[in-house]
């Protein structure tokens, strides 16, 4: 019994300690933004790795998600004779929820894991220590450009995802099922508002990008410096970031609607 309680206490302490380490890491990351020299070239490279290389995945996923939405919703809406509502339902669900969340999860798998693995490998081969030896802060040199790139790339990829999904649903709804294109688009434009929907979508994707950037770089920096440690850290990034994104999604939605 006492042992169990002790175990619980140890778990809580480790958890709080981990949280504190993440916070300190985040603070360090934030405070190194204005510090010269500017690593703009590294930022561009990280944006290429995290953003550009995810474009194909995001566009394809968005398009297929849109096609499935169009097919599923159209058949359901037909039962109520409300096919005209397709644009509104597709637009609202995509802009508010599916766009930011699915983009967040996809980018986590595509780019977040890669960043953790890269930083983890650098750590296990003592490259980070090498940088410190040359008086270069690895936080500023390695982690910051990647975290920033994820934060910037997420809203852009979110926009791409939503536009491609809208196109996918248009393709199925209009060409396959025979809904009028104008009805679909005007329903979409009437239902989606900038303040309520697009604003929420942007905020969500920014927060998700920030979370993923923080988690991915932190896990890389704090991984055990061996092959198994890198593998664990990469898995842990995907799991932690996915859960955090889903939780943050609920919190933002709840706060937004009050």
């Amino acid at each position, binding site marked *: 019994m006492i042992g169990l309680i002790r175990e619980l206490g140890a778990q809580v302490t480790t958890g709080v300690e981990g949280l504190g380490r993440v916070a300190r890491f985040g603070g360090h990351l934030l405070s190194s933004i204005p510090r010269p020299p500017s690593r703009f070239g590294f930022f*561009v*490279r990280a*944006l*290429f790795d995290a*953003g*550009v290389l995810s*474009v194909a995945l995001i566009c394809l996923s968005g398009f297929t998600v849109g096609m499935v939405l169009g097919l599923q919703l159209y058949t359901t809406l037909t039962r109520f*004779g*409300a096919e*005209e509502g397709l644009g509104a339902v597709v*637009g609202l669900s995509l*802009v508010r929820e599916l766009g930011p969340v699915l983009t967040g999860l996809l980018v986590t798998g595509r780019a977040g894991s890669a960043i953790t693995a890269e930083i983890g490998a650098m750590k296990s081969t003592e490259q980070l220590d090498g940088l410190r030896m040359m008086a270069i802060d690895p936080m500023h040199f390695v982690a910051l450009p990647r975290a920033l790139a994820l934060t*910037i*790339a997420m*809203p*852009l*990829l979110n*926009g*791409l995802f*939503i*536009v491609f999904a*809208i196109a996918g649903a248009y393709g199925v709804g209009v060409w396959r099922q025979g809904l009028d294109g104008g009805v679909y688009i005007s329903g*979409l*434009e*009437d239902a*989606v*508002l*900038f*303040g309520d*929907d*697009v604003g929420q*979508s*942007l905020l969500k994707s920014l927060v998700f990008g920030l979370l993923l950037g923080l988690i991915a770089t932190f896990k890389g920096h704090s991984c055990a410096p061996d092959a198994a440690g890198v593998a664990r850290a990469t898995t842990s990034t995907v799991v932690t970031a996915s859960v955090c994104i889903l939780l943050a999604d609920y919190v933002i939605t709840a706060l937004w609607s009050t």
Partner: protein
Amino acid sequence: MQNHATRDLIVGLFVLVGLATLAYLSLQVGGIEFGAEKRIELAATFDDIGGLSVRAPVRIGGVKIGQVSDISLDAESRPKVTLAVDASVAISNDSSAAIRTAGLLGDQFISVELGAEDDVLADGDSFTYTESAFSIDKLVGRLVHDAGVSD
């Protein structure tokens, strides 16, 4: 060096395309308006607004000219609807506002039927003539009642 230039170009393109999609979502789909066109507010009091909701469109002969900006009760506790309407549209004094339904079960909107007077409604004016929402419930109720009476 050549390689860097290509990569930078691709990243720049990526950012531009991403921003373009966000702009499309904000401006076209989201309908954000810069320096919003001038609107005037008109009031209309109804007996029954049915399922009319804020942001429902206001139309003249099917053409959208504005939207419902507020729904409240006036001093006599009758439903009062505030319409934000494009200022460039001249709506004569004796026009009437009717709550109509798009299709049988569709969304409700306000249809403005123009009158013949030369004087037009200005910001803050009210419609003199209004027509309440058509309610299927009431219609069925009356039918049932009438059927009962005729027996």
